[in-house]
Structures are given as C-alpha cells and as structure tokens.
C-alpha cells in the first residue's frame, strides 16, 4: 500500500550499548495495554530512563545531546524476547529511522522492516567504533545507504549487511507487504486446495 522507497536514512545517531537488550526493556509490558500504537513514542526504554517517581535515570535517550537522533547504534541480539511490534513502534515514534547493530533477534528485525525501519548489521569492532564516534561527537551526521550498503559519517564508512529480500523490499517501497500478498489471491487459493488439512483430510 505504501510506495515510499527507503534508500538513504540520514541524521544524528544515539548509541545504546549492551548485548541482548530485550523487548521488555525496550518497552515494558504495561504499555502494551493501549489498543493503538499512537502514544508508543513516549515509552522507549521507559524503566531504564525513569525511576518510580518519574525522576530521570542516566540513559542515552534522556541525554539532550542525542535529542533528534534518527539512527540507533546497538550491540548483539538487540530486540530479543517478545514479538511485540510495540518495541520498534516505540523506537520509530521516538524518532529512530534506522538501526545499526551486531545482530538482531529475528522477529524484531522483521517487525522493523514492516515499519520501513532498516535494521542493518556490521561486526562488533565496527559497532564499537560507531558507538564511540556518536558518543564523542553527537552532532555528527550519519547516513545508512541501502544501495551501497554502508553506514558513513564522521569521515568514516563501514560496510553493513541485511538479508537481500528485505533490502529489496525497502528499496522498492514494498516493505509493507500486504499489497504484494493480496496480488496473488488465486495462487493462495490453489495452494490452500493442495493442503490436506484445508479439505478436512478428505
């Protein structure tokens, strides 16, 4: 349904270091009680950013110098745990439009792509350099380029990866897959007819 091609995402970057940052940490379950995604942008990393009294805790998302960042630099197995799409929704609605990390949990990465937010990977050494560079110079502008498959900024450039089909979907603007899937109604009906359980094992 969407025809927005995603080729280059540019902006400042915020580093959130740590392995296996799970979706419960990205958005605590109590915010999943809302039946729309509208307010999710207020909640990313909520319990890591605010104490019980609402006081600020040290977290990159609280630091004024990272305000307005569009890129997120993370480490390994980011987004593991629950399949809640609320997690990428929260990050996107806060302002994140691309994520660079060592590795992502499968469901999380898929959810990001469905929202048009590319999750791209590079090795641990590069991620460390990226996080350090963003930390040292939060004003630096970075670009994730899905054509050249690089992330560059602050005078440096690193190769990044993502599964080819996801890259194509983003570049072609077909990351919102409903329309693609709807186009094949007849093939779907044919496939269903071939499956024994769809005909009651008759």
């Amino acid at each position, binding site marked *: *349904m969407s025809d927005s091609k995603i080729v280059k995402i540019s902006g400042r970057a915020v580093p959130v270091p*740590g*392995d*296996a940052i*799970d979706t*419960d*940490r990205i958005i*605590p*379950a*109590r915010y*999943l*009680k809302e*039946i*729309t*995604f509208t307010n999710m942008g207020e909640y990313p990393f909520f*319990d890591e950013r605010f104490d*019980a009294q609402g006081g600020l805790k040290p977290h990159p998302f609280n630091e004024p110098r990272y305000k307005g960042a569009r890129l997120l630099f993370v480490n*390994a*197995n980011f987004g*593991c*745990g*629950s*399949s*809640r*799409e609320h997690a*990428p929704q929260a990050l996107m609605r806060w302002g994140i439009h691309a994520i660079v990390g060592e*590795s992502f*949990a*499968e*469901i999380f990465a*898929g*959810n990001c792509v*469905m*929202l048009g937010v590319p999750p791209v990977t590079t090795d641990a050494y590069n991620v460390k350099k990226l996080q350090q560079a963003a930390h040292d110079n939060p004003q630096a502008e970075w670009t994730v380029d899905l054509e050249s498959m690089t992330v560059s900024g602050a005078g440096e450039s690193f190769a990044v990866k993502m*599964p*080819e*089909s*996801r890259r*194509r*979907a983003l570049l*072609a603007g*077909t990351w919102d*897959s*409903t329309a*693609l*899937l*709807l186009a*094949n109604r007849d*093939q*779907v009906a*044919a*496939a*269903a007819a*071939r*499956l*024994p*359980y769809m005909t*009651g*094992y*008759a």
Partner: protein
Amino acid sequence: MAKGTLYNKVWDSHVAAKLPTGQSQLFIGLHLIHEVTSPQAFDMLRERGLKVAYPTRTFATMDHIVPTTSQGRPFADAQAELMMQAIERNTKEFGVPFFNFATGRQGIVHIIGPEMGLTQPGMTIACGDSHTSTHGAFGTLAFGIGTSQVRDVLATQCLAMDPMKVRRVQVDGKLGAGVYPKDVILAIIRALGVEGGIGYAYEYAGKVFEDMGMEGRMTVCNMSIEGGARAGYVNPDDTTFDYLKGREQTPRGAAWDKALAHWRSMASDQGAEYDDRVEIKGSEIQPMGTWGVTPGQSVAVDEKLPDPASLPGGQRQSAELAYRHMGLKPGQTLSETPLDVAFIGSCTNGRIGDLREAARVARGRKVAKGVHAFVVPGSQQVRRQAMDEGLDKVFTEAGFEWREAGCSMCLAMNPDKLKGNQLSASSSNRNFIGRQGSPNGRTLLMSPAMVAAAALEGRVTDARRFLN
C-alpha cells in the same frame, strides 16, 4: 541448505508464490490471536477496507491481560476492559471464532491450540506472540510474528518470508529421575546461547525427545525463542498421534487414517541434511535454575554461580549487569537467597502434567512463611482437569493460591506483579529485567517441581528431595 527435513517439507508445501522481493509467500494453516497484539491489526484492516481472507483459519482467545482472581466483568482495570471489548468487537465484526470465558475453552493461546487439537502436524502456524514456537512440538512450522504481520495473515492468510536454516539438536541418553523438560531446554540454551539460534529452526531429536511426552515437548519447543530460534520442532510420532486422537478439532474415521498417513510423511527423512548439528548428553542434565537476566544465565541447582571473569568476552558484560540487578554474588549457589514469590503457570509450564508434578512436591507440606505462592492453570480445561483430580485442594492446603486461567505473572500485564525487588521462583520462560511487573523485580526460572520445592523451603532447593 537443509534437505529432506520436516522443516523443508512443511515450507515447500506451503509456498503459494514467489514475491518480487525474492521472499516466498507462505500460506499459514493456523492463525491464533489474542487481545494484546491484534487490535491494531484489525484497525489496519478497517483503514484499508479489507476483510479477513480465511476467517475459519483464525482462532482468538484472551490470556495476557485477564485477571486470575476472578473472570468477572467488567475488569477492574479500565484499560484491560477496553482491550477485552476490542477483541470481542473485532472477532464479531470479522467473523473469527473466539474462545472467551463462556466457552470453557479460554486459556493461554499456546495451551488451547494443542488441547483442542487445532495444532496438527505438517501445518504452518503463526501468532502475534513469540512463544508460538510451542506448537512445533507437534511437527509444525510455528513462529511468532509482529502486529503488521498479523494484519497480513488476517488479510491474506499468508506471510512474506525468507527460509530459515535448520539445526538438529540431538539429546541422547536418559534423563535422571526428577529432571524435567524445562531442565533440558535450559541446558540447551545455556550450551548454545541466547543468540545461538538466530536464523535457525531447531529440530529436537534423539532418545530424550523420543521418550518425552507431548507436554514436555511443548515446554522445550516453547523456549526455542529464548535460544534465539524463532521456531523449534519435534518430528511427529506415535506419541504425537496418541495425544491428538479424539480431540475436538482432530479428524475422525476415514479422515483420521488419511491424516495419519500425511502426518507420518512430513517427518524428517532418515538421510535428511542439516545446516548444523549439535549433540548434548541427556544423562548429564541436572535440575536447573536461572540466576541472571537472560534465560541463558542458568546453573544446576547445586552449582556455584560463575565468576564473570571466567566467562567468554561477549558474556561478561551481560553477567555483570545480571549480578547488579539480581543482587547475587559469584561463587554462591541459588539456594542462599530467600524467596518472596513462587509462580507456577505460563505457556511453558501451565499444563496438567506440570500441575501434577508441582502437586507431587506440595502434597501434605506447607509453603514457607513469607512466601507468596500461587498456581495459575494455563487454560480453563487444565483448571477443570486439575480440580477433577483434586490438585486444587493439594495446593490450597499447602498454602498456594489457586487461580483462574491466564498468563498472569509470566509478564504481569494483569494485576499479578512483583513488588519492589522481590525475588520470584517462576515456571515461566523469561527472567528479563522488569518482566514480572516490577522494574527491580528478580526472577529465577525453573521447572514447576522446583518452584513448588522452593515455595516450601523459602529458598531454591533440589526438588528431588521431595519426590519419592
């Protein structure tokens, strides 16, 4: 690429088309939905003027937000009530069968699918919930999806997917007495890591799984996702078919025989090829408990907690975070810290067999002073069965609370939450920071028998002491 595995056979038989992106359009045989990850998907259908393409292949229930002290309406929590109304409205408007309280079949989505016989070998199964991997116990390809993908399945009964790799996880030998499927999966995750399974489906094979009942296989497959594997499965065999026979949604008569032949044909071939293989010795697995904030941070019940400096580089930082959060120390054992809460339930361990094992430990004994212990059956049917067997009495006489069916303190979206930095022994699947409802709450994952034993003792202890 793997060849001749159940994964390959299920995948190949469900590919409806090739998409321009290079992905496959995969037909989804069974779609399960619950109240938390579906309302936005239905809203997206409305916005786009779409219908549910195959309304008889989607089934709904409610589990995450429901209170477990009473199923009365309206719920005290206004947000939960609103969510409940949304799923009532959506299932009615779009013609999706809804297993609500009144049907007597409500329960955790991954418990009711198998118990009704909706989950059948050779199917593709999707649900907006990461523990959909549970259904792999029946030889299905079952995996969790996000809400935008729930929308896709509702609108088209399909998903745009890339194939996974297949790793055969072979566990041979015989489990010791008092060692449970929960211990097996915790041992597997500890061995392979919480990200070891990224990109893979796990095929669980070997004597330990051949000997294991369906409920145990579900416990193992359930936590595949904790090991990073989006799907996990066991090849279907007579144990599977015996479990399914006579369930309300399974075929009967001539159709049963045809189904059986089809199901048998879906199992991995003798000479199947895998992308990777690992072997674990079943006889060495001990009763386990987690000590940290990822399900990979576990030890045997009497083992000393590891020194972060002794761990491989990647695990060190995470171990340090875990010690800070948990208030535990390297070198101690799990049994040294007093317990506040004991929770028996969840889609990992909320089935009748789990309750029987916990009751075996609790029978005729008393919960330690100061421990809040409660049992939450995974479904209304599990609850009825347990009450028929008198298990509710065993629990209440021992000092456990006996509750209504739901997810409860597995993720604490209902009123069951840890307070402050309470320490809980939990038969659920995630010990993530904040998971059980308090940002400072602390969770030790273990089998239901181990949770029951911990409740009696007031601290973690080897459940085998109470099993004879």
